C-alpha cells in the first residue's frame, strides 16, 4: 500500500445542470437566504397557511420528490408574493431584524426589539400577526412576554 490509492469519495462536486422538462410549469425559486427566511418565517406561515398545509399533507402520503410538484409550486409562488409585499412595505424593519438574527446565531430570543418593530409594521401594513402554534392556553407567547428569563445580555 505504498502507491497512491484513489479514494471513493469524489473531490469535485457533481452538479447536474439539466433543467426540469418542459411539460412542468416553471416557477422562479425563492432566492432568499436563511436569515431573511427565518425572519419572515412566521409571516409566511400566517399568509400561506392553506398552501403549506396542502403541501405537507400531500407529502405525508408519499415522500417521492416528484409527487407534490403542483402544491410545491403554489407554496413557492405564495412565499414569493409575501416576500415582495414585505419588501414593499416594511423593508427597513425586515432588514434590521434579519441582520440582527445573523449576528446572533439566528436565535429569535436575542433579537426581540427589532422583531417587535417588524411585527408592528407587518400588522399595520399587511394585517399579519406572528402566532406560535402550540402555545399552551392561557400562557403568553414567548415573543410577547415583557421580561423573559432567557434574553440578550444588553437591553
Amino acid at each position: 500500500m505504498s502507491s497512491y490509492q484513489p479514494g471513493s469519495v469524489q473531490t469535485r462536486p457533481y452538479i447536474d445542470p439539466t433543467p426540469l422538462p418542459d411539460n412542468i410549469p416553471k416557477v422562479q425559486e425563492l432566492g432568499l437566504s436563511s436569515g431573511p427566511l427565518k425572519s419572515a418565517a412566521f409571516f409566511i406561515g400566517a399568509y400561506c397557511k392553506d398552501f403549506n398545509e396542502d403541501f405537507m399533507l400531500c407529502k405525508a402520503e408519499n415522500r417521492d420528490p416528484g409527487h407534490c410538484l403542483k402544491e410545491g409550486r403554489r407554496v413557492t409562488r405564495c412565499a414569493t408574493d409575501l416576500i415582495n409585499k414585505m419588501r414593499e412595505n416594511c423593508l427597513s424593519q425586515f432588514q434590521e431584524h434579519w441582520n440582527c438574527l445573523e449576528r446572533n446565531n439566528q436565535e429569535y430570543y436575542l433579537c426581540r426589539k427589532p422583531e417587535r418593530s417588524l411585527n408592528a409594521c407587518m400588522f399595520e401594513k399587511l394585517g399579519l400577526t406572528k402566532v406560535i402554534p402550540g402555545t399552551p392556553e392561557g400562557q403568553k407567547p414567548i415573543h410577547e412576554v415583557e421580561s423573559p428569563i432567557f434574553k440578550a445580555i444588553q437591553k
Partner: protein
Amino acid sequence: MPVPWEALIPFGLVTIMFGVSGTLLNVSTRAQNLGKPVRHNIDNWDEMMMRRDEQLTGHKRGQRDDPTPRAGFETSSVWYTEKTT
C-alpha cells in the same frame, strides 16, 4: 522601600498573551464568517440551510434579501457521489 515592579512583569506578560491570543482567535473566526460571530449549536437543518446559502451567495454565511435568485440556482445543488467501480 521600593516597589518590586519586576515581580509584576510575569503578570503583565500572561495578561498580554491571553489578550493577544483571544483577540487573534476572534479576528480569525470573524474573518472566516464575514465579520459576523461564528455560529454554534448547528444542527442538520442549519447545515442544510448554510449549504443553500452557499449556492445562493457563494459563501456559507452570505445572506441576500432579494427574492429573485441568480441565474443557475435551480440546478446548482451538489449531489453526493461515491465511486463504486
